[in-house]
């Protein structure tokens, strides 16, 4: 993460959106994105992720909002000159070629003629579409459209890029290439806001994430911070667990099906593990494996979308009663 002077690129406060007076899509979203980081927004279908992104990009009008985007109030149109955006399921005019589409959207972002021609050519090469640059977009596959869509989001050399499902429909090679592009952008100081369902993708590149459930941020922070409580060491040994381990409240014992046992010790530091290993050695126990384990992003996500009281996964979609209150556990 490359936070400079603590400035937030996105700083959102009490964002609310009520559609047609009854569908409460966003219920007081608080979110901060630091400069130069890749920030991931997760959430089940209908959680309000796209609505939040569209509000930032002035596509949807908020019911209530506070905060800034690149230091200016949300909705300040001239600021969008420094922002790139790839909407989910974007549609380019079918009569344009890839190059023409990039140049058209660059012109709308007030990029001068010479620069937009140069940037379009460079970006088409970057996303691997230079051979298709002068073909009509109507002939492109879904993956190709995503690549050109990404190039479109970058054509104005933005300081902030918001990408809604950027790898949707892209093959594994393309996904890796897009990831590489994002990492390179971060290296150059660009802030990236990613909205994706692909948790493994996000886990690979994101510095920080927020989880949105039923229009409210229920978790926000670095993946390390969010998974800190779940960090543990797992020691797999041959045979049954020793009595002293079963009597130790800091050690949880699991019996495995193949005659092995697993000792689970909460914590992220390796130091407290050493006495346990020494004792197992002294007792001539065969240690099959020892590994540090933490929650995956998927585990984290599932925890976020599960009601702690009932253990049930929360229903997808926005709340229909505007006054309903949701969970508000933020990290």
């Amino acid at each position: 993460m490359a936070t400079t002077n603590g400035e937030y690129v996105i700083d959102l406060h009490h964002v609310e959106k009520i559609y047609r007076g009854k569908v409460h899509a966003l219920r007081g979203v608080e979110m901060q994105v630091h400069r130069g980081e890749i920030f991931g927004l997760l959430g089940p279908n209908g959680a309000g992720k796209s609505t939040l992104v569209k509000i930032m990009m002035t596509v949807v009008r908020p019911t209530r909002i506070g905060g800034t985007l690149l230091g200016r109030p949300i909705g300040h149109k001239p600021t969008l000159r420094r922002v790139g955006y790839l909407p989910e399921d974007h549609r380019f005019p079918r009569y344009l070629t890839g190059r023409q589409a990039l140049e058209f959207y660059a012109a709308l972002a007030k990029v001068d003629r010479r620069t937009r021609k140069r940037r379009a050519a460079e970006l088409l090469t970057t996303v691997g579409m230079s051979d298709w640059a002068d073909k009509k977009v109507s002939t492109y596959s879904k993956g190709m459209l995503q690549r050109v869509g990404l190039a479109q989001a970058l054509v104005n050399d933005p300081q902030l890029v918001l990408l809604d499902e950027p790898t949707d429909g892209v093959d594994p090679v393309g996904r890796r290439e897009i990831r590489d592009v994002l990492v390179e952008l971060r290296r150059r100081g660009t802030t990236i806001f990613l909205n994706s369902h692909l948790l493994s993708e996000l886990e690979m590149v994101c510095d920080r994430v927020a989880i949105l459930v039923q229009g409210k941020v229920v978790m926000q922070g670095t993946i390390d911070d969010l998974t800190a409580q779940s960090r543990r060491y797992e020691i797999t040994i041959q045979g049954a667990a020793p009595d002293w381990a079963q009597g130790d409240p800091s050690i949880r014992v699991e019996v495995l099906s193949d005659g092995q046992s697993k000792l689970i010790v909460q914590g992220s530091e390796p130091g407290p593990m050493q006495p346990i290993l020494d004792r197992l050695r002294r007792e001539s126990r065969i240690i099959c494996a020892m590994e540090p384990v933490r929650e995956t992003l998927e585990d984290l996500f599932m925890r976020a979308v599960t009601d702690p009281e009932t253990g049930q996964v929360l229903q997808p979609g926005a709340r229909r009663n505007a006054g309903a209150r949701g969970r508000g556990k933020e990290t």
Partner: protein
Amino acid sequence: MMQTVAIFLDAYRELNARKLFWITLILSGVVVVSFALIGINEQGLRLIMWDVPVPFLNTTVMSEETFYKTLFVELGIGFWLAWLATILALISTASIFPEFISSGSIDLVLSKPIGRLRLFLTKYATGLLFVGLQVAIFSVASFLVLGLKGGAWEPGILLAVPLVVVFFSYLFSICVLLGLATRSTIAALLLTLLIWFLIFSVHATESGILAFKLLTEQKVTALESRISSYEGTLQGLGKDANEPSQRRAASIRHRLEDRRSEVTDTKATLRKIEIAHRAALGVKTVLPKTTETIALLERWLIDLAELPAPANNDDSTIERLAESGAFTPDPEQLQLDAVEAIRGRSVGWVLGTSLAFEAGLLALAGGLFCRRDY
């Protein structure tokens, strides 16, 4: 400015990609070529190299220049551009806004540093590009053909460009509002055509009532002339005391009473027609004047004096009313009176009220576009 140019360039590319744009342009070319193939001489019409004798249409009835200007106004503009080409243009442009605001497409544009209202108005203007290009090419080609063939070097022909664009813009504003409201190209197109038909119906109703009013006025004038004639005759007969004269005087007095009674009734009818006409004109005032906007071109290009005079123009009005009281109207005079009545309406009224209607619709459509969530 850069953004506006980009949107117009994009609109041009969109038009270029539409087959209908080229089909319409080719058909316009056919109409212009037909102008070049039709001529007029002392005997009648000349089609390519064949002479077709037409007693009511030759250079003794109207000049070659007036013939070509009339051909351009009536056939080129009135029939082709203001009807068929307009329908083709509506079919071509009806999808502009429904496609523009479709999900995934509008997001890309609204997320750019351009205001919604400016975006809406620029996109609206690009919709007029279709007709603007078509009518400009058509008018310039017609100007050349009419000049070279008929010697009618009439720059006023080029007034067709703004007039037809303004005429189309009335319909396009309806189409845009419906397209934004329904998000459906088909719904917008069909409803626009329906509303155009309704506007035309109001115009036809008003024109019909106007013709009836003029006819009734003509009858009142004839009745009054006849009454005046009877009164003169009676005055002459009054001095003559012989029996035949007295019998004739009694007969005329009887007919005079009939005519006086008839003129009172006709005037009462006329007042009712005038009220109906004012009501129809009032309805028409708030609607766009599609037909009259196109007719402005004829008003500017062709002077009434250039048109063939009514054949029975010398007939006395009184002769239209027989002794029996049967009234025979003068259709040519009626037509001329109708044209004069319509031409008497100011350009400001025709264009001003129509543009006010369009501005009202655009305000609604613009408000819808600017306030909506996409």
